[in-house]
């Protein structure tokens, strides 16, 4: 059984030879640059010249030898290119590194001890129709964005054993992008105070998303096994917005996006949503989501993974959830990491429908000993 067969078997809710493993298959199941370099040093491996594949999250390109020999990773990511008009220009103001994204969002990272590029300026200043009309929306049909993706995906499909995953296009969702464009506080206010504007903004973003995924999948649809969408809806304590607002304004648009994807590929749909999303899991199933990630086990309602598997395991594959990423993994002992990893595997492995992955990206500062304790436990106990 090769990696792709292993992944597909589990996604079909059957037990493969061992649990499939993902690291770097998406930009929300990877490892941050500092943690990666620490781990490579701990392992005595040469990381070479580290190329960054995601600036915001500070994710490096992981070497195939590391993924194969250390992680036993079963996945590889197929990612979009940038648009032809936009060019990355990083400016150093002494304290921060700054750049403006293709969506005109201002980002910055502290030069000293910075972990991410944070979103600090938001281009849609006013909640008006005029602002939407004059905004320079990225062009999803820009050929540069999808150039050679079909050849790359086909080559990976025909020449490697890996399960292929389409990362989240544009790196945001229908509820997230309005926050990137307006600022989180402003858009949450818009939902209540300027509902027509909020509605129109989300509709435009949905149109762009649908067109982008359509172009992407017209190129790579036959070759990929998983397509990611992402949309954080919750804090760790509960939904960020009322379920009523979600069901009225966001869910129908997510459904349209997923229908667009499913019309072009037989790949499984992975939904990435951080925080306490339990309230929304039945909605995700209803709109066609097949896989739920990251299974943030320290968020309210997601801690009892055995119960979660029992309740939703027939309809959803759990991709992630291996070890509490805010407590055990960074601050526990290797033995505590092993204990939790083993417990999560016991909870979520039975009958397939599980892909072992960290809960979101492994952050800088996580001890290499703990990372290895997690993977060694997956290797040891992840066998059916």
């Amino acid at each position, binding site marked *: 059984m090769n990696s792709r067969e292993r992944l597909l078997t589990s996604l079909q809710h059957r037990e493969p030879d061992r649990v499939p493993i993902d690291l770097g298959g998406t930009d929300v199941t990877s490892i941050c640059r500092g943690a990666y370099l620490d781990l490579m040093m701990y392992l005595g491996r040469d990381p070479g010249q580290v190329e960054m594949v995601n600036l915001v999250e500070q994710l490096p390109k992981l070497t195939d030898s590391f993924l194969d020999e250390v992680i036993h990773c079963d996945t590889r990511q197929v990612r979009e290119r940038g648009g032809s008009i936009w060019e990355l220009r990083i400016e150093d103001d002494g304290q921060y590194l700054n750049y403006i994204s293709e969506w005109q969002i201002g980002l910055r990272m*502290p030069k000293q001890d910075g972990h991410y590029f*944070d*979103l*600090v300026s938001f281009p849609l200043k006013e909640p008006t129709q005029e602002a939407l009309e004059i905004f320079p929306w990225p062009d999803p049909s820009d050929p540069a964005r999808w150039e050679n993706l079909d050849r790359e995906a086909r080559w990976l499909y025909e020449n490697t054993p890996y399960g292929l995953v389409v990362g989240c296009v544009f790196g945001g969702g229908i509820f997230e992008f309005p926050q990137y464009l307006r*600022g*989180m*506080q*402003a858009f949450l*206010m818009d939902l209540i*105070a300027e509902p027509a504007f909020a509605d129109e903004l989300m509709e435009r973003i949905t149109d762009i998303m649908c067109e982008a995924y359509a172009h992407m999948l017209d190129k790579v649809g036959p070759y990929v096994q998983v397509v990611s969408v992402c949309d954080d809806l919750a*804090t*760790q*304590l509960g939904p960020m917005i009322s379920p009523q607002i979600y069901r009225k304004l966001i869910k129908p648009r997510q459904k349209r996006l997923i229908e667009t994807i499913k019309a072009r590929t037989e790949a499984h749909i992975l939904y990435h949503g951080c925080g306490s999303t339990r309230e929304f899991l039945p909605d995700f199933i209803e709109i066609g989501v097949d896989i739920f990630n990251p299974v943030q086990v320290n968020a309210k309602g997601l801690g009892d993974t055995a119960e979660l598997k029992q309740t939703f395991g027939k309809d959803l594959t759990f991709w992630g959830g291996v070890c509490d990423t805010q407590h055990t993994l960074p601050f526990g002992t290797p033995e505590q990491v092993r204990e939790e990893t083993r417990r999560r595997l016991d909870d979520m492995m039975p009958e397939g429908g599980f892909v072992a992955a960290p809960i979101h990206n492994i952050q800088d500062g996580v001890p290499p000993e703990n990372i290895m304790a997690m993977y060694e436990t997956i290797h040891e106990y992840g066998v059916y």
Partner: protein
Amino acid sequence: MLSDDKLPWLVDRIRQIVEQASAPAWGDLWDKTAPGTQNISMFAYPNPLAGIGLAPFVFSPDANFYARLFGYSLKEVFTDATTYICFTLEQMVWNYENLHHDGSASKTILINQLGFFAPSLFGMMPTYADDAVPWIKGPVISDKASFARLKQPDFYTSGLSPLVHKMYAEASDLLPKDFQVEFTTWLTGPFSLLFHLRSPVDLAMDLMDDPPFVHDMMAFATHCMKEWWKERARFLGRVGIEPLIMGDDEVGVPMISPAQYEQFVLPYESELSEAFGGIDYWHSCSNVTKLLPLIARIPKLRMMDIGPWTALEPAVRLFGKRPGSSIMKRLHPVSEVLMASEEQMRSRLLEIKATCYDIPYMLFFDGLNVLDTVEESVQQVLLLDRVCHEIFHCDVSRPDVAPEPSPLKQ
């Protein structure tokens, strides 16, 4: 539109209530000797007769609840003195006629501009609507340069000050001499103020990226708050400032960590407490369970608010058993009140009573809004009032139920 005879009728009715009112059958549960004489607050202090099995409770539904119930425009309530007075007096009358609670009718009327007053002094003006309490948006500190341009508010001209002065003067003229009007207050604590002025996202990043900037902003907010209250005292012809009633609503985990609270907030709240001769009531709507040991270090803190998300048991240990301090316990307005069954209410209240039985405490029911219909929400309020009356006014026994568990054991 108010009828011409509404205000005189309400004034007479309040006079009747105040003259008739004597200590209820369950006794006077307020501590008349407690420090602080602001007489501007809905808060009083539980009589330190801990362990007698009784406790005061007060209903303070959201302004939107009363506006729907009585048919007021909230825009008019917060901008027109006559409407504001009628609205306030009508609440007192309704409460007196419908509730057993311990909030008494009074001939003192506070011109209350809630939490949107202080941010307005720095340029965040509220948006008004007929069917919603005014709200603020649009942070004014976008960067260090915009912070540097912020000025200490002028007591007479900044933000909502002209409106408040006008409403204060008009209310004083409208009401007869046996009534008193209290000038508005600055309730918003320094961290909460910055939460609005800077925006939560930027403030959260500042806490990590730029600690000196956070200290600069906190020091400025603290200084402005002290100076405003001194000016208020001068305006009212009073000697000095009185203990503070402060809502630092956004202080809580996970907005800030305990270490960040200790570094960025505690020094300024302590400074305020020293400057004001104490904090009579410290309030946050966030979960402050992990901050309780730090908040307990604020000097002269007399009543600690325990909101719906904060664990009661450690608060009882830290504040309830400390001489001169007490606890105000609030329920979750939706899940524990408006959507709760009688059995659920009773069970929760008995748990609270069992937890607090040996300490001075009170219950406070705020944030109550209209969920579906006014009638249904009113029925829930009346139901909670009846259950509270039975448990906290009529039954002195110690409940035979387990107290709220410690968060460490959950």
